[in-house]
């Protein structure tokens, strides 16, 4: 992958410094007959402050795309830049907050200890961050205040094992917000939660996001979740993994629970379902379990 030093790149830095940009990303797993093209020439541009969801069937490479931005994986071809710097450098500057599918809390630390953990590692990040072009400095958040907003006020001193799955995932979200990341990467964070919990946690996520104005890249397989949360939804298709549509969700914010029942909301849901269906029909998965587009909520 191309290494870009923000201090030495003059003109292009200005254009990419304010967005996450993936150019011609290719990622291939395995080789020979077992070869699987997870990403084929994927181009993505995500502006600072946007909430973008990536939706698609299982195995379409949406998680791979997220891992590419997180610097957890290198592309076989193409480039990935996070606000003008390489993902690796973005990690070094703690510009990235990751919320994985499992809460991934440390079981021996209570909630407060867990959300304070990012501050204890990689202490040089702040210095590095200030030198990155276009970076907006923000004061460190009050973790207790953030926990409060996430509905974890009573759980501050509890261990993860004493919390429900929804509470654990809330703590994981607070932990990610705690580093004041430039971008929050969320990999199907609510997929293990029940419908009721999911809707309440979505609302809290939007509340905090509204305050922090962080860029969010949200991987999901739920159409209504994508519509409710996002400014823009990227629809992906599998084999080879590619982006087939980009839908701007122009619904007004704040988006309350009641909006879920409106016609406009359904309009966007149908639009995305159609895109998923089309992508599916163009390229149905061969030889494996047919996961129809209808299986996608």
């Amino acid at each position: 992958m191309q290494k870009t030093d923000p201090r030495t790149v003059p003109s292009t830095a200005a254009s990419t410094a304010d967005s996450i940009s993936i150019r011609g990303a290719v990622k291939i797993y395995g080789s020979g007959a077992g070869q699987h093209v997870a990403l084929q020439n994927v181009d993505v541009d995500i502006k600072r402050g946007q909430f973008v969801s990536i939706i698609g069937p299982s195995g379409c490479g949406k998680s791979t795309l997220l891992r590419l931005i997180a610097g957890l994986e290198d592309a076989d071809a193409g480039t990935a830049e996070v606000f003008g710097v390489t993902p690796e450098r973005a990690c070094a500057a703690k510009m990235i907050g990751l919320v994985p599918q499992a809460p991934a809390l440390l079981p021996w630390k209570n909630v407060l200890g867990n959300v304070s953990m990012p501050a204890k590692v990689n202490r040089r990040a702040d210095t590095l961050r200030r030198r990155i072009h276009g970076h907006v400095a923000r004061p460190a958040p009050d973790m207790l205040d953030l926990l409060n907003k996430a509905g974890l006020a009573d759980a501050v001193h509890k261990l993860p094992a004493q919390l429900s799955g929804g509470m654990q995932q809330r703590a994981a979200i607070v932990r990610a917000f705690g580093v004041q990341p430039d971008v929050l990467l969320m990999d199907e964070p609510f997929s293990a939660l029940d419908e009721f919990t999911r809707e309440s946690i979505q609302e809290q996520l939007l509340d905090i996001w509204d305050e922090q104005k962080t860029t969010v890249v949200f991987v999901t397989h739920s159409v209504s979740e994508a519509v409710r949360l996002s400014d823009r939804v990227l629809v992906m298709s599998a084999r080879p993994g590619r982006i087939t549509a980009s839908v701007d969700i122009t619904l007004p914010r704040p988006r309350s629970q009641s909006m879920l029942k409106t016609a406009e909301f359904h309009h966007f849901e149908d639009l995305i379902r159609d895109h998923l269906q089309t992508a599916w029909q163009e390229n149905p998965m061969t030889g494996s379990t047919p996961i129809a587009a209808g299986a996608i909520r």
Partner: protein
Amino acid sequence: MSVITPEPATMQETPVTQPAAPAATTRSTLRKRLGFLRPAYWLPLAVLLVGLGILWSVTARDSPYLLPPLAAVGEALAANPGFYLANAWATLAVALVGLAIGFVASFVLAVLVSELPVARRAIMPIAVVLSVTPLVAIAPALVVAFGFGPEPKLIVTALICFFPILINVATGLRSVSPAVLQVFTTLHASRLEMLWHVRMPSALPYLFTALRVVFPLSIIGAVVAELSAPGAADGLGTVISVASSNNRLAVVYAAIFCLAIMGSLLLLIITAIEDRVLHWHESRQGAKN
């Protein structure tokens, strides 16, 4: 688990009904501590002990060279408690110092092995071969090499403790879930930070599993070394070997009794420490609540 808090949409919905954590812990510990008073708890053990005692006494009466009468063992202990205490202390000291040496060596190696694949490939095969070699066979050789001083005893004890700790800690250090690793990778945590904040705490349950095996094992190591060094000055192993060659079966069993007590005490201590340190672990959560 009984304390799964209901999902609160907002914070007002969760009233503070949970008692403060320390109070709850004290109360449940108290209940647990007093549990042994119930007959259902101690009666089966008491019945079995009395049965075994009768069986022992009958055997001892008929063939005194098979087992000494229990009274004789008690007399041997009562006649000279200072003698047994001094020798027990000598054995215990060897066991604990040897354990400490083995612990430090194996822990350092475990970190090395889990961090460096090269070290793993080089060290693990040797460690496995060492672990399957009977220590009883090595002990006499060490006595020849190092004489009747404390060195061979400490080496044998350290060796016997070495492998369980190495294998468990090495496994524990690598038991961190991929999701946790990803979170800390995106934070660009250094290897040392990862080791200290994530890997070592993750390895603690594995370490205690090893320690529960190794604490009693350290006494075995010390006794084996003492038995292999016939000229050694003290230690319960020496007492046993001298007394058995003099046909003083009561003294042998008195010493064995002391060893059993020592082993049990060590096990109790390590379990108590484990309960303290691993209060967060899922194996403790069920009991606590």
